[in-house]
Every structure is written in structure tokens, then in C-alpha cells.
């Protein structure tokens, strides 16, 4: 993993260096001046790509963050703060950071359209404020000083390129880190991310904070570029256009950010040469964004797809990693109950979804949880894993009460679950997902061994190309890879063929011995339950109807009745 990031970072740095050298050699200073803008906008787009493209949140006020950075740089210039532009940029970025966190805080609760409304409102309000307080030095025509030695347009180009390069390289490392993977995870499902032990608030706030920091720097660069600025440079419309471009090109990709910069900076130039009105550009960007949203593919992704057609990605043939390479079980103490629910009651309004339900999962066993539709099985799992706002009763994990812990904390403590509909980030590879899910520390061989053991696709494959049935297996593989004390499997076999389901049942039965994890299995298929579970609990109308050894429970007349509505005693009596 480390090697991957270093390689990608080196590649990015080399490409930027070559591109910069070529520009300096070949182009006139007019073009150099124009292309400087490409990279400044590129920095702003990278900041937006992080929030929008990676973390999947909407920000319609990115130019406001840039405005904060630009304003601070202008102010430091006017008071002649020591250190020059490089230092001012840093301070400008840091000044934008709290604004990012302040907008990120509502984003913890608000998403989709609500977040769009808030950020748009902020953009408008910020425009009003900036228009009132005006840009420092605007009235005295004080220009922002460029770094000494780099005052010429060529010099400033080199400076901007260097800053762009530093940010791009840093992002290569961050996006491949666990933090970067967590952004992708919350984009696709916050619940699923939390169930992997990802802290959703941390992921959201860090995305907004880092993004605002980078946007602030881009604003500062713009200040040095133009010398002085107007409120209009940071108006809501600018933020909206930037947003549209980011969506259209896929600003989360290195190629996309540059491409977007080219479009924003050079498209007006092209229109000017064709004597067309400049604002056609914005219309074009808006249409492009709608197009990208309707196909679900940005320009960068389209290029990538075409590129892979020409140069197919090499997929290392999976070594038939043997079972001996499976990671060792984490040693657990004793044979006491690892998970226990005591009289848990859940209400949704007037409806009682769970009524004083109790259940024990002993160390080293697979316990089945069955019951008719609407019996409360999903509520049961949600209660255990912390996805309900409240419940009555107690849940004990390894003998300790966990009722006060959040979903993320429970997942980190070792209470893991899978989902009926899997929502993994399709941008991750199978291997990256397993690593994110495992919490780290697995070797390549161990990852491969787990994948082979559960008959999953190879680790290089992108999740986007894995079918839904195999994604469920992958979900199970991720939980197993973490080797937590307890795994809750929510209908892992749904959609599998009969033979696959039976096979999966055998694997599930082996989990306690191989990985040291106890399992609570929710399943409809009785064959699977029989082959995997030593004990079964039956839920009906939110209450526990029966619990005990599997075959005994399944043979109880009351259970048959709950399941089929047939009163077998009655039938026999007739």
C-alpha cells in the first residue's frame, strides 16, 4: 500500500515537472500567464473534488472558502506581514479551515438537498459580507506582492506549479490512506461505513476542513496572480460554476482537476477568439455536469475507461493461496457468553418492534436468528450494533454493557455486521475494501487466502465490476478479515443459488474455529440454518418465541405455526 502511494505520488510529481518545463520552454509569456490560471483553478478544483467527488457531500460555497484565503492574504500584504506570499498562503489556508469545519458541522446532520441549501445560503451571505468589507488594499490600489525572485509571470508560474505539485502529491498519500478510504465509504453509505468502524463525523469534518484549507490556498494564489480582487471573484455564481465543472470533469482525479482548470481558464479565451459571448462557458459547464450526472461517469472516468480499453489493466492471476495462509484467530478468553441481550424493547412511535427480547451468543458458536417477515429481526441487529436512536434493556458485549456506545465505537470494539444490501464504495478494489474492513495489519497473502476461502473475486478487481451476489460474500469476507469477537450476518445467502447457499453455510459454521469469532446468523433458508447453526432463536411479533438447539426448535409445533400458519397439533387431531 505504502509503495502504491509513493509510486503514484512520484508519477504525479514527475508529470507536473515535465508539463511545467515544457510550458516554460515552448510558450510565450501570454500563454504562460493564462496557464498559471489553469493550475490555480486546478488547486480549487482539487479541494472541491475532495468533498464532492470523494466524500459525496455537496458544497456550493467553495469559492467562499477561497475568498477567506484571498482576503487574509490581502490583509497580510497590506500590513506587510513578514514571510511573504508562501507564509501568507499558509495562514490564509489555515484561516479558511475553521470556516470549513463550521460548514462541515451542519453536514453531520444535513445531507443532499439540505446541505446544498445551507452551502448556497452561505455563499450568498459571504458575497454580501465581502462586498461590504471590500478587499484589503482595493481602495488604495495596493497589489499583493508575489514571492521575491518570482515576480515575473514565468516566475509566478513556477511558484503556482510548485504549490499545485505539493498539494497533488499530498493528496495522493491522503486518498490512499485509511482516511481517504473512509471518505469513499461514507459517500456510499454512512451506516455501512460506521459498521466498519469508520467515524462518520470525523470523516466528514476532515473532508471539509482539508478541502477548505486547500481552497483557501487557491484563493491566496489567485490574489498573487491578479494583484487585487473583487467580491465578484468569490460570488455564489463562481462557486456554482466551479461545482458544475468539478462534477463534469471528476475533480477528485488528478487528470480531472487539470482538465477542469483548462476548461475554466481557457474556454473563455477560445470563446473570445471565436467572438462568442464569454458566459456561454457557464452554460456549457452546467450542461456537461447534468450529462455527467445522468450517465454517472465524469470525463476523467470516461478517459480512464477508454484508456483501459487500449491498455488493459493487468490483473495478477490470483495465487491459489492455501488455507494455511489464513490469518490466525485472535485469542479469546474463556467460554462465557460473548454477546448477551437482556429484555430489549424497541418502540417506533406506538408500534412495539421488539418486546423484551433476550438472546445469548456463547463463545465459539454460530447462533441462528429466524422468524417471519416483520418479526423484528432487522431491528434486533440494529439494536445490537448501535444503529437505533434508543432502546430499553441492556446489551452486554464480552460481559460489559455497551448501551452508551455509538455504532462506530461498537464496530471498533469488535461487534461487526453485514448488510442486506451491500453499499461498498465501487471505486475501491476488492483488496482495498478487505483492508479497510479488517482495520489493517493483514499481509497480501492473508487477504488472498480469505478471498479464496470464501470464493470471492481476486483482490485487484474493482468492486464496481463485482456482481451483487459476490458483493455479499465480500461483505462477509470483510467482517471475517477483522476477526472480531462477534459477527452478525444479515441474510448473507439471499440471492445465492441453492448450492452456493449450502457451501456458504459450511463456511459460516467454520468461522468460530478458524477466526475465533462467534456468529449470529439471520437467515430465511432453513437448510442453511441447519447446516451452520448449533442454536436457534425464533422471533415472532417482536418477541422471542423459542430458543435452543437447532433441530429441537425447528420441530416445535409453535415454531411451525409461526412460520406457516399451520397448526400441526390441530391438523393431527382431526
Amino acid at each position: 500500500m505504502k509503495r502504491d502511494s509513493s509510486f503514484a505520488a512520484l508519477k504525479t510529481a514527475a508529470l507536473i515537472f515535465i508539463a511545467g518545463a515544457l510550458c516554460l520552454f515552448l510558450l510565450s509569456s501570454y500563454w504562460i500567464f493564462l496557464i498559471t490560471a489553469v493550475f490555480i483553478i486546478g488547486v480549487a478544483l482539487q479541494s472541491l473534488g475532495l468533498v464532492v467527488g470523494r466524500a459525496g457531500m455537496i458544497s456550493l460555497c467553495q469559492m467562499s472558502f477561497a475568498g477567506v484565503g484571498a482576503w487574509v492574504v490581502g490583509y497580510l500584504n497590506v500590513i506587510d506581514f513578514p514571510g511573504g506570499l508562501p507564509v501568507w498562503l499558509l495562514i490564509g489556508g489555515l484561516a479558511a479551515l475553521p470556516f470549513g469545519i463550521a460548514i462541515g458541522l451542519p453536514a453531520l446532520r444535513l445531507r443532499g438537498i439540505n446541505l446544498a441549501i445551507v452551502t448556497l445560503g452561505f455563499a450568498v451571505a459571504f458575497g454580501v459580507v465581502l462586498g461590504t468589507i471590500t478587499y484589503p488594499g482595493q481602495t488604495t490600489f495596493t497589489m499583493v506582492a508575489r514571492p521575491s525572485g518570482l515576480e515575473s509571470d514565468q516566475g509566478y508560474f513556477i511558484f503556482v506549479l510548485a504549490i499545485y505539485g505539493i498539494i497533488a502529491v499530498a493528496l495522493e498519500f491522503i486518498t490512499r490512506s485509511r482516511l481517504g478510504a473512509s471518505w469513499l465509504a461514507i459517500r456510499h453509505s454512512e451506516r455501512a461505513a460506521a459498521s466498519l468502524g469508520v467515524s462518520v463525523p470525523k470523516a466528514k469534518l476532515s473532508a471539509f476542513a482539508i478541502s477548505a484549507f486547500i481552497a483557501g490556498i487557491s484563493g491566496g494564489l489567485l490574489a498573487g496572480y491578479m494583484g487585487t480582487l473583487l467580491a465578484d471573484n468569490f460570488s455564489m455564481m463562481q462557486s456554482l460554476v466551479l461545482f458544475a465543472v468539478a462534477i463534469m470533469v471528476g475533480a477528485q482525479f488528478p487528470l480531472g482537476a487539470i482538465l477542469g482548470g483548462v476548461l475554466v481558464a481557457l474556454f473563455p479565451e477560445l470563446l473570445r477568439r471565436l467572438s462568442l459571448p464569454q458566459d456561454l462557458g457557464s452554460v456549457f459547464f452546467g450542461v456537461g455536469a447534468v450529462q455527467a450526472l445522468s450517465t454517472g461517469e465524469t470525463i476523467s472516468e470516461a478517459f480512464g475507461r477508454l484508456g483501459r480499453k487500449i491498455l488493459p489493466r493487468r490483473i495478477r492471476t490470483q495465487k491459489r493461496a492455501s488455507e494455511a495462509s489464513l490469518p490466525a484467530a485472535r485469542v479469546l478468553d474463556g467460554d462465557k457468553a460473548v454477546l448477551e441481550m437482556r429484555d430489549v424493547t424497541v418502540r417506533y412511535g406506538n408500534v412495539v418492534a421488539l418486546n423484551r427480547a433476550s438472546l445469548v451468543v456463547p463463545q465459539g458458536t454460530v447462533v441462528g436468528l429466524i422468524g417471519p417477515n416483520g418479526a423484528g429481526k432487522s431491528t434486533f441487529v440494529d439494536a445490537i450494533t448501535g444503529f437505533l436512536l434508543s432502546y430499553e434493556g441492556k446489551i452486554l458485549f464480552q460481559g460489559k454493557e455497551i448501551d452508551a456506545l455509538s455504532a462506530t465505537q461498537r464496530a471498533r470494539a469488535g461487534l461487526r455486521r453485514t448488510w442486506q444490501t451491500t453499499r461498498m464504495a465501487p471505486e475501491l478494489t476488492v483488496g482495498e475494501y478487505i483492508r479497510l474492513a479488517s482495520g489493517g495489519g493483514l499481509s497480501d497473502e492473508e487477504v488472498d487466502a480469505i478471498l479464496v476461502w470464501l470464493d470471492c473475486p481476486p483482490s485487484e478487481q474493482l468492486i464496481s465490476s463485482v456482481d451483487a451476489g459476490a458483493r455479499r460474500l465480500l461483505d462477509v469476507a470483510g467482517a471475517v478479515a477483522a476477526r472480531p469477537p462477534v459477527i452478525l450476518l444479515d441474510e448473507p445467502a439471499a440471492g445465492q443459488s441453492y448450492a452456493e447457499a449450502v457451501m456458504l453455510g459450511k463456511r459460516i459454521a467454520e468461522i468460530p474455529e478458524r477466526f475465533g469469532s462467534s456468529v449470529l446468523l439471520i437467515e430465511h433458508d432453513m437448510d442453511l440454518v441447519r447446516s451452520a447453526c448449533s442454536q436457534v432463536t425464533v422471533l415472532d411479533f417482536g418477541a422471542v418465541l423459542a430458543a435452543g438447539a437447532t433441530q429441537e426448535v425447528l420441530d416445535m409445533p409453535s415454531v411451525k405455526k409461526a412460520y406457516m400458519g399451520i397448526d400441526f397439533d390441530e391438523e393431527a387431531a382431526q
Partner: protein
Amino acid sequence: MNILETENLVIKRMGIPVVREVNLVASSGEISVLLGANGAGKTTLLEGISGIIPIASGSVELEGNDMVKVSAGKRALAGIAHVEQGRTIFGSMTTEENLKVALHPDASLEEIYELFPELLARKDVQSMMLSGGEQQMVVIGRALVGRPKVVLIDEMSAGLAPVVVNRLMKGVRRLADLGLAVVLVEQFANLALEIGDRAYVMRRGSFVYEGDCATLGNDPDQLHHLYLGDIGEAA
């Protein structure tokens, strides 16, 4: 007369085949009962027939006309009524408003009040405040005033008391006796088999039994096997 017929119907959810090559027939005046444990694919089958989800392959014919490419709304107008599970009332409306929303010019509310007299006294009550049984009557009635040819009813007894279920089952039988074709999906087998004509049992997306209700109703052991599988017994 066969009103509804499916041939080798395959329906997928997120790429996974959930209904596999199913042939189902519903005739006027008859109730086709569709049984199976949950997760077997019964609801998906109904949703494919009514057009809520697309069909991967095979055909759905209403009186000989292929419906596969027809939208859900047009299928409804053509005569396929679908009473979804979970009692999908319009909660903010009264009983009568619910029934009036899609009233066919030839139909009248009186028919519904005749079929379910208990609704008459509750006609101005907001349907959110009705009991579960009454709500179920409202959604069935709402489907009937659209003058359908076949009615698909999904899990109408879920969460209701046995007395109420009995009452509803009688109403459904009445519909068939009036000449409608009915497809009744039920998790609870005995009552459905009592009032039904044709029986299907579904498992993992396929029909594992096809026959008449009386035969299956008199053979609880076979039903047990069909529902719960038999690996345990074999081992």
C-alpha cells in the same frame, strides 16, 4: 378462462435472479394461492407482473396481450390491480377519499361498502386512524373500483389477528366468485389453502409445487418439506 399467464418469467434484483423461470396462471373466478417462506421471491414475482420492477426475460400476458414492455400505470389501466404488502393507504385521506382517488366511471363506492360493510361507518375517518384490518379493506376496495380483471394481493394477513384474517379471506373469496381472477400471496398457508383453487409453492425463486389447494391442504407433511427443506431430516 385464463386471464393472466406468465411464461418462463425471470426477474432480477440488482443483477441477482430472484424469480427463476416461473409459469403462473390465474383464471377468472379462481384464486391462485402463492405460498413460500419469506425471501422465496413471491413479492418480486407480483412486482414484476404489475410492472414495478422490470422483467429480465420471459413473458407476462393479460388476456393474450404481452405486458412486458407496458408501464405500470398502463398495466393498471389494462386491468392488473396490485394490492401491495404493508397496506399502502394514503394516510392523510379519509376512507372515502382513498376509494375515490381512482374511481372508474362504471364503478361505485356502494359495491365496496357492500363487500366490506364495516367501512361504511368509518367512511369519513382519516385512514391513518383505521385499524389494520380496516386499512387492508380500504386498499383492496381501492383496487377494485378501478375495474380490474386480475387482482394481485400481497401478504394481506401480516400482523393481523386471526379473526380479521378470516374476515378478509371471505371477502377475497367473494371477489373470485364475482368473476375476478385473484393471485393471493400468503405466508400463512392454512387459511389461504382453504379458500383457494390453484396452489403454487415457491422456493429460492422457483416453483417447487404446482397443484390444487385441496390436495396440498390435506398433506401438511408435504407442505412442511416444501417450506422448511429436508436436509436436516436426510442427515
